[in-house]
């Protein structure tokens, strides 16, 4: 496949590009879903194609085609340059690229059990069993699904990159819904988006969907008769690691994307409350807060060998001891921001999407407390977990998140279950109130397989190492 990418790059340069790169990508996706004890859908997708990116002046041109021939690749390269030239009619300052070693390499993630080789019948039986059990345990509607992606990509750049990667990702999800007179309640496992990683079917086996199905079904039913989450302007709030993954994703991950900070996403995804002049000095959160973006974490969903610009995966400090110290970047955005190197965070969703800044594995480093210790240390508070709704402003500052389930905490003990828990806050104030941080035994690499960004829309796979956390003085119980 390298030959097509090379042909595209050569043609882009011949048509006037000062830099070009091309990716041939072959992706297979398999998904099955079951509802109420019956398999309801099996989808298999295969896509192969080439996308080529050309830089002229201040703008990129990108063209993609499903035709994998040398002629089609050359035509795609020429088209990319023609598009870049049109971009230059509404120009900015010339874009530069931070330097990166032009490597020739291969990379693949470790897989114990090839998920596409597991018999469909076995996979179907798993989903049927889990949904049937949730129904028996009290759910009116029970869903379960798995997703598998197998991606092979070949990158060539005009600077000499020649890298192929083989990435297998998979995971599963299930949920139970109980309908009451006036509202519905839902429980999900392992989280609202399931759990996904750069791993094989062994990940799905470890989740033990059938073993957790009774509890999920029972909790969905029990929530209908649970008291409403109290409304308070300030309380001690303990957040479980699944909801913390969402908290990190929305209020830290997106906020530190350099393209947003530079205004490149201003009209759609939005900007960021962060100002580059404060990089290295701004207090983002309490001293307990340490966040990294690390694409080298084995098995995490945001892991890879090289990003789609050929930058090797490497850990990047984002927040250190509560101070904002890093961003998610690519070669062009890093150069514009005056950074020495790319953060290696540029990926495209398939051959037909322009690579852009995406989260890798953005997560908290663990601290010293267990969840039990947090509860024991809380006299009057609330414990919440499993995301149910999420909304945050276009600067990634003002958020309101809802969870599927909560429990009152009284006198250091977990009390009654409560329904419809919500909490709201302003990013840096909220993170400054972090006063207890889960330890390494609680550290979970949550995977988010559906992060939307860009125009045309792209779906990103991101990872979020997370632990339970306690925050002080949080507003809870916002209602409609």
């Amino acid at each position, binding site marked *: 496949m390298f030959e097509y990418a090379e042909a595209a790059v050569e043609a882009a340069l011949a048509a006037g590009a000062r830099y070009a790169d091309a990716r041939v990508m072959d992706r297979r996706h398999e998904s099955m879903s079951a509802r109420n004890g019956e398999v309801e*859908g099996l989808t*298999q997708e295969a896509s192969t194609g080439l996308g080529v990116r050309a830089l002229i002046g201040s703008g990129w041109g990108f063209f993609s085609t499903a035709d994998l021939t040398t002629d089609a690749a050359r035509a795609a390269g020429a088209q990319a340059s023609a598009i870049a030239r049109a971009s230059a009619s509404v120009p900015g300052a010339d874009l530069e690229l931070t330097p990166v070693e032009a490597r020739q390499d291969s990379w693949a993630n470790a897989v114990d059990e090839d998920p596409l080789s597991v018999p*469909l019948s076995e996979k179907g039986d798993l989903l049927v069993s889990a949904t049937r059990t949730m129904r028996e345990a009290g759910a009116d509607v029970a869903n379960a699904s798995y997703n598998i992606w197998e991606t092979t990509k070949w990158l060539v750049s005009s600077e000499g990159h020649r890298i192929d990667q083989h990435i297998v990702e998979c995971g599963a999800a299930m949920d139970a819904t109980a309908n009451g007179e006036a509202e519905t309640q839902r429980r999900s496992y392992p989280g609202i988006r399931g759990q996904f990683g750069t791993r094989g079917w062994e990940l799905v086996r470890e989740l033990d969907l059938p073993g957790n199905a009774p509890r999920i079904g029972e909790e969905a039913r029990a929530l209908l008769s649970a008291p409403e989450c109290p409304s308070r302007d300030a309380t001690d709030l303990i957040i479980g690691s699944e909801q913390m993954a969402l908290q990190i994703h929305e209020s830290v991950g997106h906020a530190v994307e350099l393209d947003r900070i530079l205004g490149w996403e201003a009209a759609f995804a939005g900007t960021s409350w962060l100002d580059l002049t404060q990089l290295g000095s701004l207090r983002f959160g309490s001293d307990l807060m340490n966040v990294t973006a690390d694409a080298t974490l084995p098995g995490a969903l945001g892991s890879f060998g090289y990003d789609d610009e050929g930058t090797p995966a490497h850990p990047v400090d984002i927040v250190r001891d509560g101070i904002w110290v890093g961003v998610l970047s690519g070669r062009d955005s890093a150069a514009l921001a005056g950074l020495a190197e790319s953060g290696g965070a540029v990926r495209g969703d398939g051959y037909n999407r322009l690579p852009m800044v995406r989260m890798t594995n953005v997560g908290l480093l663990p601290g010293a407390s267990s969840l039990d210790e947090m509860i024991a240390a809380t006299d009057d508070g609330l414990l919440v977990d499993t995301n149910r709704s999420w909304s945050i402003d276009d600067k990634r500052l003002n958020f309101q998140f809802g969870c599927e389930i909560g429990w009152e905490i009284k006198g250091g003990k977990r009390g009654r279950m409560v329904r419809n828990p919500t909490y709201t806050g302003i990013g840096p104030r909220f993170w400054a109130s972090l006063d207890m941080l889960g330890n390494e035994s609680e550290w979970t690499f949550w995977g988010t397989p559906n992060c939307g960004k860009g125009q045309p829309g792209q779906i990103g796979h991101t990872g979020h190492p997370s632990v339970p956390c306690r925050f002080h003085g949080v507003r809870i119980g916002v209602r409609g």
Partner: protein
Amino acid sequence: MSATDLLEVCERVLARVGNEAEAEVTVTAGTESLTRFATSFIHQNVTDDARQVHLRVALDGRVAEATANQADDDSLARLVKSTVDAARLQPVDPGWPGLAPPAEPQAVDHWDEPTSHADPSERAARVGAFVAAAGGLETAGFCSTAGTHTAFANSAGQRASGRATVAMLDGIARTGAADGSARAASADVDDLDGATVGAEATRRARDADGAADIDPGRYEVVLSPSCVVNVLTFLALYGFNGRAVEEGRSFARLGEPQFDPVITIADDVTHPEAIGIGFDAEGTPKGRVELVRGGVTTGLVHDRRTAKANGATSTGNAVAGAGAFGALPANLVLEPGTTGADALVDGVERGLLVTDFWYTRILDPRTMVVTGLTRNGVWLVEGGRISRPVTNMRFTQSYLEALAPGAVSGVGSDLTLVSGTTFDFGAYVVPSLHLASWNFTGGAQG
């Protein structure tokens, strides 16, 4: 590829499946281009020469589907074999509704030939005009053009083909303290006037500059068409969707006056402002599906599966890729009133004029409580006059209650096509709305 070419691919796939299984094939091909600008220059500019072949087969109720993007004989043979092999391993699906019978699709042709092959310079020219109209304010946004042909064939004898173009210009102007937005959409790129859209965004940005906080609470609101599309999208996803009704998650109660009497909503791809083709992902012809008439809930949307489960017939609202989510209306039309958008503001005693909603998410589908924020311009209206800009607010509001009987104070006459603003789904034709109450639960600073 022409419609004939695409139908020929469909026939080749059906021939390979033979009599072994029920089968349906959809082939789409076309060009989708998008020119994106930020900090007042074009920074991303893409074209995708797209093609897709989708096959669904059922062997005695054992169902599997697959998608590929190669159409040569070997690839099609692999697609058929892998799909049929997978179906063999599946359990019988008791909800399998069978294939759509032969029926003539709606004779719609929302197509403009020049738009289908608009080149990058045409999009760049509109972007350039938008930027110039901003008079030095920073700008960001996009201009897109797309032309897609779709062909459908199934082994029950249904054949259909269609084509659609869509062009959009959507952007903001920024003063540094405030953003203002404007947008336009049409099947014809010539309808997009970069200078006009840019000037409107700029006016809003300047008018929104100097915004100050206002106390959260309940306010009257005048919602612009993009906000109204947001409201309708949630009603569609979680309410009028046949799957939601089947599962008991929907608010919809047929025959009950759940909305204000001035509300009439239909899904109608035949509307002259609409975008799209005349049949759905299962080959069922789309028609005009009335969902609300004079405030009374009168209809739901169905694909073949939800129709079977509800004892109804498909309304032609199967959506590719929606899967278990159910049936969705892609062409909602909210019947306009006779009051101009400005005159709606005249009728506000004390309330807020809102340009856009942002990051809206549902808290409970039955009550339709949604949280989100305002964006790109909010103004306080007092005594029918805009008194000052205010900062963005968070709301937590039941969309159903917002449109309930007695809750709608006015419907605008400014019928507007809005595409791609909420979950990038559908192209809805709606006017502005004046609502009696909207629950703002937090200010910009929490």
